[in-house]
């Protein structure tokens, strides 16, 4: 018993896996002492700002920069003509397309970058922008992807007619690709033979990650030593370095990319934007550092949007509700350039996870990418690549099938879940789900909210509504989602040819503290807290004695960055593996110090003990000191390790969410009465950080489902370019959440962790949306489109004849 208590105490002292350790980052963030991109100030620094197109589609007849150059403080005005000799007026996108850095002959979306003004201060830059005169000739604007595929208007005149794109044949001048997965014929046959088929168009509207900190950079070219330093809001600093090298011709060792503190990314800061290129060029031209930081309108109008998927689904089942097939055709609005941030071989990301948590024998997915006069992007907004779209699609189709079958949607899910004994499970669309126990999670969730009681209450409410005693309806939104995160295995996942491994390098210091550097970069996820916990458990040093450093490409090992919930599945695994290398060397040192054979010591929390003689031990701290201070035969001095981890598979976190929502039929106002979120992210590193991630992700999901959108009018004007119209919830709009968990470790991850940061967005959106739909199910609603803002909910009620 004493040994047990001793071990417990030593384990607790490490603050390792499972500990709700307070976030070490928060001391500076909560005191306003973070160091964000706009805090970076260098001597002689200049400021850049863009002239942006007011038109969605127009020919540029002329650009006159003369007046702008006369504005006091303006140093330079760059246009496409200035960048062309450098070959930088266009840039490659992550999706295999190319994008104008500055408008080359025409503009293709409102807010597009037309000219870049460089000035001695931020005000002069803005004055210069106002003084640039651009003459436009309006062209016909296309904002509808369906019309785009039938239009004679050629949006991308730079692309050769009839030539293949990066992902195969293009069947129309505004078509980007058709990407298919699954067995089309078998799926069609199963649907043809099915007893019940439900068919519906499910639209996931265009929205935007809108991180609190917008995108920006500071480029500083040192002409003396030829080195370029680029500070920026980069979710993948190493990738930016490689791309910057390939584009500029500057050798990669002469480029240093630094991501300082980042105020949220959510996918918005994965891509490369014209502002980065222009700032680099401006610094090279002027020999001075150049800062560019977007304002909120720039960010919402021009940097990467998310979603905009029109998903036409067919789901087939037996009369008893066993699903037999799923078919989905997506019309994907990519905007003016295909700038999706997906692994290169996956132009629709991992959308083919759309069979969700269900055992569906036949499935087919086809995705048509289309150009329109909207901003480019298509990033994974707090989700793995196109996984929220997939989860929303299947969770809506399940609800619609339940209506078609006259079944309870919870029961329909249960009878179709992949069973625990089927894991590892290979889906009809080719994914190998690593582990899961959906039934246990589902039962726990239903019991926690008293699901049967809620349904009784809902039925009573409907009766009371019909009797005229209330004008409020009750919706019960169900979701069981399965994510696919942790991209990914190098054999099939790369970005611009770079395999999606990640890395960790550890140095143990002589006195038993350590620094670990990773290829990822926190944007608020709390890596400095949680990665130290992984390492603490692996090497037996307290997390409080471990510094985590990320974001400086001169010091951190190469990695693919932080997005798609990949940090814990990939870099977290690298951290554990590097820690194990440390321990392997430490074991030899400990055995030498204890004068026994290597195999005669065993690891015990924070020390090596002689087997059978626990009073004889050396702690990791003892070993670290010895590693630097005494000669050990056959062993190099020092205690360091590096691991580059290529994951054998993705991880598949899952969860069961239930939303209970009150809806005012007369005003369209809604109130979330209860939200229960059960997440299974495998091994839990820090429960408090997980809970924080879940709360944040659910709040973004609430925003998306209930009001947040990037909307355009018919001539391509952005209608939601400010936070007045773009819904970003405050504490006032944010409901209380109850979080819960089950723990089904990943069998292939070194510590069994799966990643959690994006699950609540993936599962939250369908839970909120299903609650709205469910409230009106008794009155015949089958499908309505998000976002469910007041007027759209009111319209739904109005269409159903609920306003008398």
């Amino acid at each position, binding site marked *: 018993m004493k040994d047990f208590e001793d071990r417990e105490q030593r384990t607790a002292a490490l603050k390792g896996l499972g500990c709700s350790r307070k976030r070490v980052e928060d001391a500076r963030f909560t005191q306003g002492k973070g160091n964000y991109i706009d805090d970076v100030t260098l001597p002689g620094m200049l400021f850049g700002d863009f002239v942006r197109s007011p038109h969605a589609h127009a020919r540029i007849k002329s650009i006159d920069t003369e007046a702008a150059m006369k504005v006091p403080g303006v140093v330079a005005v760059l246009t496409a003509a200035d960048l062309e000799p450098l070959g930088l007026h266009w840039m490659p996108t992550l999706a295999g397309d190319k994008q104008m850095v500055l408008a080359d002959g025409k503009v293709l979306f409102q807010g597009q970058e037309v000219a870049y003004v460089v000035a001695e201060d931020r005000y002069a830059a803005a004055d210069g922008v106002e003084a640039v005169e651009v003459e436009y000739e309006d062209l016909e604007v296309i904002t509808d992807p369906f019309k785009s595929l039938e239009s004679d208007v050629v949006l991308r005149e730079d692309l050769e007619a009839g030539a293949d794109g990066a992902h195969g044949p293009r069947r129309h001048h505004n078509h980007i690709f058709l990407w298919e997965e699954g067995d089309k014929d078998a799926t069609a046959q199963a649907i043809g033979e099915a007893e019940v088929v439900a068919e519906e168009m499910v639209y996931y509207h265009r929205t935007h990650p809108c991180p609190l900190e917008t995108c920006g950079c500071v480029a500083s070219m040192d002409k003396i030593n030829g080195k370029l330093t680029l500070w920026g809001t980069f979710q993948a600093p190493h990738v930016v370095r490689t791309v910057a090298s390939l584009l500029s011709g500057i050798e990669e060792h002469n480029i240093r990319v630094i991501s300082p503190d980042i105020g949220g990314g959510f996918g918005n800061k994965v891509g490369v934007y014209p502002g980065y290129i222009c700032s680099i060029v401006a610094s090279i031209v002027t020999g001075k550092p150049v800062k560019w930081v977007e304002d909120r309108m720039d960010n919402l109008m021009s940097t990467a949007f998310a979603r905009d998927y029109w998903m036409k689904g067919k789901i087939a089942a037996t009369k008893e509700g066993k699903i037999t097939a799923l078919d989905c055709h997506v019309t994907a609005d990519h905007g003016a350039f295909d700038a999706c941030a997906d692994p290169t071989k996956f132009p629709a990301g991992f959308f083919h996870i759309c069979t969700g948590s269900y055992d569906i024998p036949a499935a087919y997915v086809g995705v048509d990418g289309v150009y329109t006069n909207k901003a480019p992007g298509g990033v994974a907004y707090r989700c793995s690549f196109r996984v929220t779209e997939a989860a929303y699609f299947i969770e809506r189709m399940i609800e619609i099938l339940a209506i078609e079958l006259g079944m309870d949607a919870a029961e329909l899910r249960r009878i179709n879940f992949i069973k625990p004994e089927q894991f590892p499970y290979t889906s009809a669309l080719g994914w190998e789900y690593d582990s899961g126990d959906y039934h246990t999670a589902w039962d726990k969730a239903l019991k926690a909210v008293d699901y049967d009681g809620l349904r009784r209450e809902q039925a009573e409410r409907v009766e009371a509504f019909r009797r005229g005693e209330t004008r409020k309806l009750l919706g019960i939104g169900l979701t069981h989602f399965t994510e696919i995160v942790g991209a990914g295995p190098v054999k099939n996942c790369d970005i611009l040819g770079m395999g999606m491994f990640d890395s960790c390098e550890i140095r143990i210091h002589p006195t038993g503290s350590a620094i670990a550097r990773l290829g990822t970069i926190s944007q608020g996820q709390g890596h400095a807290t949680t990665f130290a916990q992984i390492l603490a458990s692996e090497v037996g040093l307290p997390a409080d004695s471990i510094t985590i450093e990320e974001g400086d490409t001169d010091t951190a090992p190469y990695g693919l960055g932080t997005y798609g919930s990949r940090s814990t599945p990939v870099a977290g695994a690298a951290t554990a593996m590097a820690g194990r290398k440390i321990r392997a060397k430490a074991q030899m040192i400990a055995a030498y110090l204890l004068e026994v054979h290597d195999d005669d010591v065993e690891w015990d929390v924070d020390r090596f003990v002689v087997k059978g003689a626990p009073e004889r031990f050396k702690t990791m701290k003892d070993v670290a000191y010895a590693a630097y201070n005494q000669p050990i035969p056959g062993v190099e001095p020092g205690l360091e390790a590096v691991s580059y981890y290529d994951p054998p598979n993705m991880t598949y976190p899952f969860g069961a969410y239930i939303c209970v929502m009150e809806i005012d039929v007369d005003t369209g106002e809604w109130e979330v009465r209860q939200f229960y979120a059960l997440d299974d992210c495998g091994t839990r590193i820090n429960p408090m950080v997980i809970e924080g991630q879940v709360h944040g992700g659910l709040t973004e999901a609430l925003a998306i489902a209930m009001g947040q959108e990037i909307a355009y009018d018919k001539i391509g004007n952005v209608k*939601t370019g400010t936070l007045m119209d773009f819904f970003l919830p405050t504490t006032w709009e944010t409901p209380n959440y109850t979080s819960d968990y089950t723990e089904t470790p990943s069998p292939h991850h070194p510590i069994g962790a799966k990643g959690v940061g994006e699950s609540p967005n993936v599962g939250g959106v369908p839970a909120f949306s299903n609650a709205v739909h469910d409230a009106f199910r008794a009155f015949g609603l089958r499908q309505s489109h998000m976002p469910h803002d007041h007027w759209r909910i*009111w319209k739904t009620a109005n269409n159903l004849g609920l*306003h008398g």
Partner: protein
Amino acid sequence: MIPGAFEYYRPQSVPEAVSLLGTHGDDARVVAGGHSLIPMMKLRMADVPHLIDLQGLSDLSGISVEDGQVRLGALVTQSEIVSSDALAQAAPILRETAMLIADPQVRNMGTVGGNVANGDPGNDMPALMQCLDAEFDLVGPGGARAVKARDFYIAAYMTEREDDEILTGMRFAVQTGGWAYEKQKRKIGDYATAAAAVQLTKEGGKVATAAIAMTNLSDVPAFSEAAGAALIGTDCDDAAIKAAVDAMQGDIEPSEDNRGPVEFKRHVAGVMLSRAVKRAWSRA
């Protein structure tokens, strides 16, 4: 979101401020809390070469309740309205309304004078002042004059205030009876989708007086005399409320925006008014 260059003035007296306005004419604008003008300047939608800050004018501050009259200085902030117990006694509808304006940070800066003077149809105080039958005090080169809130608004951002005049404050009678300000908005910080201000009195179980005005449902605040008249003499039953709502519909002219189409706004206007009347009646 970077404004152009401007000259900044901080006059210490109303005559000095009026004189500055006279000197610079169309090129000058006054600023109090800055919550309408500064964003417009940052967007470069308002070009203001001469910005005259009124915060130095102590005459324009303060809340007084005397002899059955309430006076609000133009520089009184929404927070001061919320925290004034005297005002909560004299005209409790002001606190109820101010609490529905944005968030504490905005309420700490935003002033009642700026709110009513700017002529933004989204602002809440103009309809409220019409409901209370307030008078606005204006001072210009020719001296002082008063204009009734119900006569003040011409069109969006166009009011009876001349370019060289400053709105120094507003006055209205101490209120009796029931009150309510009912507002639907998409989120904190948003303008109203629709809002209704109701102030009524009760005698012998019947409505004796009723004043009704609506926010953000036309290009000006919409005082609806007909809606009030529909309630007078009734016991505020469902039929009377319906009549008031129907009458109000004739006095609004909503336009479509991101908050929704016209038919939705009209519907919500009716719901807001109906709820406001019921609550006011319950307090009468």
